[in-house]
């Protein structure tokens, strides 16, 4: 779920025609530091989290892991 959503954002952002896998690196996509900030902001908006762009997130999987971690920290909605 998280990976698919991120892949969709990446496909939009870089106008790729699919082909993003968990192993795809941001370097191979030609990402610079400004690109990382753009993507982080789109992810914040798409997932409702805060996310720091981090050069240590090398692959899409690294990013997906970070997003999952942030999502699990959000307060859970009650069932009332």
């Amino acid at each position, binding site marked *: 779920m998280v990976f698919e959503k991120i892949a969709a954002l990446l496909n939009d952002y870089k106008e790729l025609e699919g082909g993003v896998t968990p192993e795809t690196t941001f370097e191979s996509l030609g990402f610079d530091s400004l690109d990382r900030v753009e993507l982080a*902001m789109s992810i914040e908006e798409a997932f409702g989290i805060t996310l720091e*762009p981090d050069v240590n997130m090398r692959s899409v999987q690294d990013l997906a892991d970070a997003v999952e971690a942030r999502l699990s920290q959000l307060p859970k909605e009650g069932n009332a």
Partner: protein
Amino acid sequence: MRTPLCDLLGIEQPVLQGGMAWVADASLASAVSNAGGLGIVSAMNADAAWLRHEIRETRARTQKPFGVNIMLMSPYVEEVAQVVEEERVPVVTTGAGNPGKYMPAWIGADIKVIPVVPSTAMAKLVERRGAAAVIAEGGESGGHVGDLTTMVLVPQVCDAVSIPVVAAGGIADGRGVAAAFMLGAVGVQVGTRFLVADECTIHPNYKQKILEARDIDTATAGRRLGHPVRALKNPFMREFMRMEYDSAVSNEELDRFGAGALRRAAREGDMKTGTIMAGQASAMVKKEQPARDIIREMMEEAEALLRGAAKWVN
């Protein structure tokens, strides 16, 4: 002229003086603050001890608000990020990167954080992290430059955030100030013009080069290293650009060649092997004056223009 930026920072004129490395010391910063603007001390690549001394020196010379610029690529960034907290500096501007990780501590210490941003996404990011304002700096500026120009960056950043926007890059007279306000900014940051302020302690050779510069005399270099820089073309710059285009020269070698070049120009007056960082507005800078007169002239001219701005509107 009073704008919401003045109220936010406790200053009289909506003018910030750029945090230029090897230039923006206690002498210049205190002069700008005493003149009603916001003077800024550049932490550049200096260590905590140097910055602490310069902050205290600034406080000895002015009671008015001032700021410190933190260059996020500095090897001493962690310790200087601490110093501004300990010294209770009222305003911190940042450049050359994303200040996100330092902002919680600074904001916790009641520091107003005003990052320089090269894009709308960076503006949004720092707004979300609690920035008090942003400086949208176009590539006309000197030193580290982004790709976008002031003309397109400022209005887009104004659209992207609700916090006050300060325009920077290419602003050297009242026309630039008035234009910045039309683009949506509520203040300006000026760098190049303050190089020739009387209270600016750089070498007279450097000032002379600024006064003699023509419009086409600057260039950017260093894109290959990931951080392009704008400076006046001189033998150093030409050699740097030659090396940059030579794929046999490694990035490490290129970086080493540039080390110390700004200090050589700004402090030793070496115009050949030093780098004379300056903006495209250099050619518009014609007169050495006290910082007070620079601010007064710019603002008076801006006011006159803004008053007459409706002249072609029916």
